[in-house]
């Protein structure tokens, strides 16, 4: 028994029509004018001109020359901090030059050695906490968190209306003999995810743990 007796020509027409529709879904480039975006809270890098003199066509430090065009990264000038948050580093933490993505960079030094403290900001939407914790764990040879481990992995530090998710991780980097410790704190603030990370040899970082937690307590939103 034939279940359906649709003429082949009708079937072919419907199929061709549907396939044509399916193939015509390429989205075009959109063009529009929009008023200047002024989303608070402002950050140093929200202003794409920050730290750069475009009128003079100045390149950022260390930037390769580009024929006919000057391209500037969003970084603040070395030594500056974000406009969105401020912090006060302990006196014995030497400030280091900022890279393109660091908002803060310090070298805590003590008798046990030297550590590295970095501060980054990324979009909160694409930086979920767990993925970041797994990334940090992976950097020192630890396995990804299980659901049970994740539930207890984070200690919350509340300070001046800000809520940090902090972790203390100990592992070994591939190819490195001594143990590496990571003290990390993640702060979600609006659309921004702030990452504060102190890493280095276990003993050097362990000696700075109290200073690191005190340092987090100095983090404040910039007054409007």
């Amino acid at each position, binding site marked *: 028994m034939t279940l359906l007796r649709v003429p082949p020509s009708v079937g072919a027409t419907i199929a061709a029509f549907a396939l044509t529709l399916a193939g015509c879904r390429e989205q075009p480039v*959109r063009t529009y004018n929009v008023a200047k975006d002024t989303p608070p809270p402002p950050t140093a890098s929200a202003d794409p001109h920050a730290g750069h003199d475009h009128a003079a066509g100045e390149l950022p430090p260390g930037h390769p020359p580009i024929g006919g065009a000057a391209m500037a990264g969003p970084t603040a000038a070395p030594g500056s901090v974000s406009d969105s948050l401020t912090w006060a580093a302990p006196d014995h933490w030497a400030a280091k030059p900022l890279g393109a993505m660091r908002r803060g960079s310090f070298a805590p030094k003590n008798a046990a050695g030297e550590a590295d403290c970095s501060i980054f900001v990324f979009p909160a939407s694409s930086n979920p906490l767990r993925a970041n914790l797994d990334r940090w764990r992976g950097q020192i040879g630890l396995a990804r968190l299980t659901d049970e481990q994740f539930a207890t992995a984070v200690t919350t530090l509340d300070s001046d209306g800000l809520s940090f998710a902090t972790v203390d991780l100990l592992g070994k980097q591939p190819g490195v003999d001594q143990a590496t410790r990571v003290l990390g704190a993640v702060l979600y603030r609006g659309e921004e995810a702030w990452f504060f990370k102190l890493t280095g040899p276990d003993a050097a970082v362990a000696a700075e743990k109290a200073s690191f937690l005190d340092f987090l307590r100095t983090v404040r939103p910039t007054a409007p």
Partner: protein
Amino acid sequence: MPAPFRSVIERLASLRLTVVLLVLSLVLVVVATLDQVNLGIWAVQEKYFRSFFVFQQLSGSGIAFPFFPGGYLIGGGLLLNLLCAQFLRFTLNWRNVGLHLTHFGIILLLIGELLTGLLSVESHLTLDTGATRNYAEASSSRELAVADITDPDSDRVWTVPLTRLAKSEPIELPGCPFKLVPLQFHQNAHLASRAEAPNAPASPATLGLAGQVVFQPAAPTYRPNEDNTPTTLIELRAPEGPLGTLLASLAIAQPQTLDYAGRTYAISLRRARIYFDFALTLVEFRHDKYPGTEIPRNFSSQVRLRSADGKEDREVRIFMNNPLRHGGYTFYQSGFQNNDRTSILQVMRNPGWLIPYIACVMSGLGLLLHFGITLVGFLARRRAATT
């Protein structure tokens, strides 16, 4: 009616076709539900339901072939089938009023779903206390934005959907002095600063952050609580030659700027923006708890709504089950962050949102009428038989 035309209508109105389409839709729902484990709900909706065909990629090749009818084809088939049946069998008889009403309700439901699939957009608006925004960011759509930010008052913006970046064809930006040539596109990638990954291979990027950021392509994630980080390498090509290569990624929060031909351009890969002709300011977010407990009682956002033309300026309170409907958009209280100082609103634009309600009322009323008329007829016949 010409005989060949009637013949086609009769075949399209066939009850067998109805059954075949219903079975196909059942299979589609089952397969799509099972595939949610691999793809997550959004990708499944696009692949199975909001498509004419479900495409399957041949393993080891870039060739995709249609292997099953998609939601649009099956739904469209059912709609055509029902319309043809109505066209053939419609007779204006009060006894059939309920049936007709029910069928028209179903037709409306199918059309409503089609409109929802084609026109509805879901996005989010994240507002810190005191912040003002006139746009929302799409939940699942990303775009590459090139903005001419030279003028002090407004920006000229070109946005390129990521599907275009996945192809290696040059992308012309109308009115822009350079074009984009996608060199690489990754649906997901891990990014790190050079300082964090000193041993990573050199980045091919020469502009903007250039070698200061390294990336590693990663397998796309479909977990509902994770997000992909689309990343692309694009060459900017001016008429006189290439300007250089730029790394753009959702993980690079701020636009990278380019000075060229006396103008400044900001380039970023971001969540697709949907602009309103009004702005919302978060006046206050409240997270009320039952006294003496941590149990939430209420989440609400007090927002100030100002239209672009200045005619409207009012405050509105958005809370659970009490969204703000304005300008074709509906704003629901969705979440909060940052110790209750940031509110997240879900923004829905669905021009056909009323259709399912109307369709269900029509169908329900139709069934009630039909069974009512049948019952009355049955009771009348029984009374006549007994007397």
